[in-house]
């Protein structure tokens, strides 16, 4: 019963937030600049939550997430612009191809641990970017023209699905297996968990949603270029997850919202923007090294106290 109540609570909250956003955009209270910021915010949340599954839950330190964003962005752009198929289909196929890319990258690299894995995923992320840079079909370095059709509605639906799927995955035997791998891989293996399978599965699911975010990302601007998906983009996503607290889904959501707002407002001060942004990060890491939320979830503050996630 409790689980079902939680689900409906989440859905009602989602509808309310959606309604407020839609109303503000429809009535013109938020101009194009701000409604664009809202969509960008949602894209960042999806990216943060998808990387949270890989780093925060499964404990695999991947820093090539922008590569899968790029796959989703380019594949979905090709589908709407070259094949002129509907946007919904483009987003789904973008996600699937990104997931396949995740499998392809994950199967060899997830044998590595810690720093080695980080460097390998960083390398793969760059390889994906360079591949797009050299394909004439998608415009090479000059980039590819994409029509601007991402809306608050389409982005919000994607966000709700992302959060539902990832939190459902986390709160099941599969999510517990992933957390067990994060906590102690040797013990997880000794308890009968196929560690390679779960690492690759979490990586592929994370890549799928990065691909979904990519579809929204490419259709939120008029042009996409390989430079949008450099390793700095990967670090941006990584910062959301670390700042929010490794292992906390709501933490990465909050961090993504916060940092998107901060960096958008700081655009008025181009000279000092990166300095202030960096200072915010330094201050948070000094005073909350475990991230904004630690490993807790926002729901922990309401319901009964729970020690850690994984099964409810």
């Amino acid at each position, binding site marked *: 019963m409790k*689980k079902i109540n939680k689900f409906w609570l989440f859905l009602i909250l989602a509808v309310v937030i959606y309604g407020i956003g839609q109303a503000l955009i429809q009535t013109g209270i938020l101009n194009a600049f701000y409604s664009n910021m809202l969509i960008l915010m949602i894209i960042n949340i999806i990216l943060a939550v998808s990387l949270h599954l890989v780093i925060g839950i499964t404990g695999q330190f991947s820093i090539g997430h922008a590569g899968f964003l790029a796959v989703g962005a380019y594949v979905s752009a090709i589908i709407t612009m070259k094949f002129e198929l509907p946007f919904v289909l483009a987003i789904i196929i973008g996600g699937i191809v990104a997931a396949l890319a995740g499998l392809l990258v994950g199967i060899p690299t997830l044998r590595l641990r810690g720093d080695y894995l980080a460097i390998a995923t960083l390398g793969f992320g760059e390889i994906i970017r360079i591949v797009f840079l050299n394909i004439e079909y998608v415009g090479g370095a000059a980039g590819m023209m994409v029509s601007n059709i991402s809306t608050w509605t389409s982005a919000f639906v994607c966000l709700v699905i992302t959060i539902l*799927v990832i939190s*459902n*995955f986390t709160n*099941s*035997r*599969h*999510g*517990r*297996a992933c*957390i*067990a791998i994060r*906590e*102690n891989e*040797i*013990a*997880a*293996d*000794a*308890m*009968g*968990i*196929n*560690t390679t399978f779960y690492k690759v*599965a979490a990586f592929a699911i994370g890549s799928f949603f990065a691909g979904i975010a990519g579809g929204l990302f490419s259709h939120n601007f008029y042009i996409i270029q390989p430079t949008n998906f450099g390793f700095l983009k990967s670090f941006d996503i990584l910062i959301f997850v670390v700042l929010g607290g490794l*292992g906390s889904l709501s933490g990465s959501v909050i961090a993504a919202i916060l940092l998107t707002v901060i960096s958008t407002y700081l655009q008025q001060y181009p000279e000092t923007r990166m300095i202030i942004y960096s200072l915010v990060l330094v201050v948070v890491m000094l005073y909350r090294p475990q991230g904004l939320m630690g*490993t807790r979830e926002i729901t922990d503050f309401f319901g009964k*106290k*729970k*020690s*850690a996630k*994984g*099964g409810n």
Partner: protein
Amino acid sequence: MGALLQVKNAGIQFGGLKAVSGFNMELNQGELVGLIGPNGAGKTTSFNLLTGVYVPTEGDILFNGKRLNGLAPYQVTRSGISRTFQNIRLFSELSVLDNVKVAYHSLAKHSILSSIFRLPSHFSEEKVMEEKSLEFLKIFQLDRYKDEKAKNLPYGQQRRLEIARALAASPKLLLLDEPAAGMNPQETHELMELIAFIRKQFDLTILLIEHDMALVMGICERIYVLDHGQLIAAGSPDEIRNHPKVIEAYLGEEVPSEHA
């Protein structure tokens, strides 16, 4: 098939170093057997051979007549061998209950998609896992800690939880790697009782590594002794106690009398 576990001439070589070689062992259903030896004798290495952490470079390991060589640790666990670790390896950020639930993982069958879409199989199987895990914690008197993080338990309880977790994977053979390490005499005594209890309750075969001779001599029916990666003796506690090679391994060679 008489023996539950048969180790035939197993060994492993790391580069030029033979960590364990010519290791022979037979465990019968229901036995409680000890594995002892001085530090660095290869006890934990032989556990790692049995559980698939290392692949033996020579010899065979047969469990229930099935060859285990080359299986990954999770496959070995699923075929019925479960273990604890010398340095406790709990999932420290997970709750006590979830630690046990992880061990039930492979007994449930619902797929990832079933969990993502919250199909009926997800709810029914998760419910069974929850109930079984709670039952287990009750048997081990850990149920009052169930929502506590594993890392917050006192040391003795962490050992207990590790054994509980290993048993939740429903093994036929349980390997305990120094279960009494770091325990005071009172805790060691409780542990001995616990081992005797689980053996009866779960119809287990147990192999344990231990340095605490009182414990080993007190509860083991047979003992194997390793030194420098070689099996030097095997037999009942009394035989081992008076075995010249064992005394030599632990205390050193007898010095000829003229030097005294």
